């Protein structure tokens, strides 16, 4: 596979004006599927959440899930869309093993939601309005696993295996209008936009919104044009961009790659690109061409949906507090400074901290753990902190262990490692690793006596009134107890031993 030449991002931005567009697929968290009563559950054994409708067996009829329609309308309302009074489903025909019917049931000319907008706040507080073209209902496809070959990719595979558990899971596809004027902030805007969509659907409660599970998936369209030119350049559509950082990186990479192609006097090919997290680059997928004719036609097995003003207004009244308003409230509740709060938001950890506070931790402790030790470990593991595997309950339990004096901050970090290594709950890790603070004064006393005997000159200094010298003895005791003592208690005991007033 040839490696693409790319410009530096700065050079690409000097010469070209980027135009973006996004298609974000949101999986709804309904109990059952879009058109069948089979369960919508992630992670079960292959082909156990399917029935005859999901498998597209002959003679079956789809029946629309009302909750999925209402969730779709809620998404539209949250994105300031108009809600269609009348809309239909259409068949999008294509032959690919991920869809057993050889068509995807989708919407075509009349999406349920259209003409919306969303204000995106960038890291420095700049607000950028993104116009929403449409949000339509459709169904997810099955999951393919490519076997044989060395890479697990479709190229070179000997055959593929198909699990249809995901087939028919309700999806809402949110499509933006072309986004102009983002300039050098395009990659940042891309990430912020997808983060905002994820936040909105999670806040609405209509999706689990876990990107690592594919609940929110982004296809990013990028094109470049010379500054001052009105006509858009040829775009590419990068698929498989399934983390917030990947969205930012993929947009940045495509801008750099387009820049180099255009500089060399070659035309951009309108095509699908695939994002590769390992190489942080895209490769060519299939070109978009006239062969991409999905032969849409009205779905004869589903009747039109008519939305009344009463129904839509009932749904509107259920809209929760918008995320931007919620942020203002949470910052006030938690007492974070603007800087602290912005760092939390930019790290994508507001929900985790809110859950942790709700579960019983103080706001300060929740921030300390998520922004500190957990974020640090996530960075080392190259995953989003939320995906690391630490639950709010773990943070709360560790904090309780600290508050009760069972462990100190230093030991707590080892407890976290133990939890991440799969050794159980924090209490179990403390037990298994023998991490509890040595609070038995007898055990501490012998360690203190040992330390004092090892440094008699320091002991004399303390007896002579140089109380600050006690630090050297405390250090000795902590070393002997491998950090498992409470330094405050050790200090008290040393002074008592030497008969000195602290």
């Amino acid at each position, binding site marked *: 596979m040839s490696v693409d030449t790319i410009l530096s991002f700065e050079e690409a931005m000097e010469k070209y004006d980027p135009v973006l567009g996004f298609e974000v697929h949101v999986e709804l968290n309904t109990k059952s599927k879009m058109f069948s009563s089979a369960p919508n559950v992630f992670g079960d*054994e292959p082909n*156990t959440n399917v029935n005859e409708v999901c498998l597209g067996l002959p003679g079956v009829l789809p029946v629309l899930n009302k909750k999925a329609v209402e969730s779709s309308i809620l998404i539209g309302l949250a994105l300031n869309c108009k809600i269609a009074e009348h809309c239909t489903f259409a068949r999008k025909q294509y032959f690919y093993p991920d869809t057993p019917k050889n068509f995807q049931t989708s919407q075509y000319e009349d999406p349920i939601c259209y003409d919306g907008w969303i204000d995106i706040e960038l890291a420095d507080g700049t607000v950028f309005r993104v116009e929403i073209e449409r949000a339509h209902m459709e169904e997810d496809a099955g999951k393919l696993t490519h076997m044989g070959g060395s890479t697990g990719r479709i190229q070179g595979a000997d055959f593929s295996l198909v699990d249809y558990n995901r087939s028919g899971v309700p999806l809402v596809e949110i499509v933006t209008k072309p986004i102009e004027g983002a300039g050098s902030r395009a990659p940042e805007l891309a990430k912020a936009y997808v983060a905002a969509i994820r936040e909105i659907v999670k806040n609405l409660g209509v999706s689990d919104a876990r990107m690592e599970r594919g609940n929110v998936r982004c296809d990013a369209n990028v094109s470049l044009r010379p500054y001052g030119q009105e006509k858009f350049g040829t775009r590419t559509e990068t698929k498989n961009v399934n983390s917030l950082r990947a969205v930012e990186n993929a947009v940045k990479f495509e801008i750099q790659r387009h820049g180099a192609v255009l500089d060399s006097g070659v035309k951009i090919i309108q095509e699908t690109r695939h994002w590769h997290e390992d190489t942080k680059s895209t490769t060519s997928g299939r070109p978009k061409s006239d062969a991409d004719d999905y032969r849409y036609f009205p779905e004869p097995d*589903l009747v039109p949906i008519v939305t009344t003003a009463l129904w839509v207004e009932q749904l509107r009244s259920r809209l929760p507090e918008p995320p931007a308003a919620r942020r203002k409230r949470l910052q006030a509740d938690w007492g974070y400074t603007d800087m602290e709060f912005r760092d939390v938001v930019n790290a994508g950890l507001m929900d985790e901290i809110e859950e942790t506070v709700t579960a019983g931790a103080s706001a300060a402790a929740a921030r300390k753990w998520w922004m500190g030790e957990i974020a640090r470990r996530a960075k080392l593991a190259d995953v989003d902190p939320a995906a690391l595997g630490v639950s709010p309950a773990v943070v709360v339990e560790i904090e309780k262990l600290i508050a009760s004096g069972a462990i100190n901050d230093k030991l707590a970090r080892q407890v976290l490692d133990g939890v991440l290594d799969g050794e159980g709950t924090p209490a179990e890790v403390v037990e298994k690793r023998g991490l509890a603070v040595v609070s038995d004064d007898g055990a501490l006393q012998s360690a203190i006596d040992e330390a004092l005997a090892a440094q008699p000159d320091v002991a004399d200094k303390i007896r002579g009134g140089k109380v600050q010298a006690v630090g050297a003895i405390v250090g000795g005791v902590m070393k002997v107890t491998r950090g498992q003592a409470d330094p405050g208690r050790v200090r008290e005991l040393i002074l008592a031993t030497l008969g000195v007033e602290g």
Partner: protein
Amino acid sequence: MAAINREQVAHLATLAHIEMSDDELDRMATELAVIVDSVKSVSEAAGDDVPATSHPIPLTNVMRDDVVGHVLTAEEALSGAPDAQDGRFKVPAILEES
């Protein structure tokens, strides 16, 4: 005669993984041509002012509550599959070797 020929039917059969004999291809090409002709005459009758019909009966909002119903077992789901492995449908290599 309508623009559908035997080669197109054979191509469609390949895409849909339906095995068809020579006789069947001949017959299907003829039958499909008749259907395409019939559709054409409907298209001629309906002007631009006639919206596409998605359903012949004027029904709307046929929906069900979001309640989980029956499922098939993996064995049942795979029972009609030409090939299976590890509880999943086994399909031929998707990309042709290049």
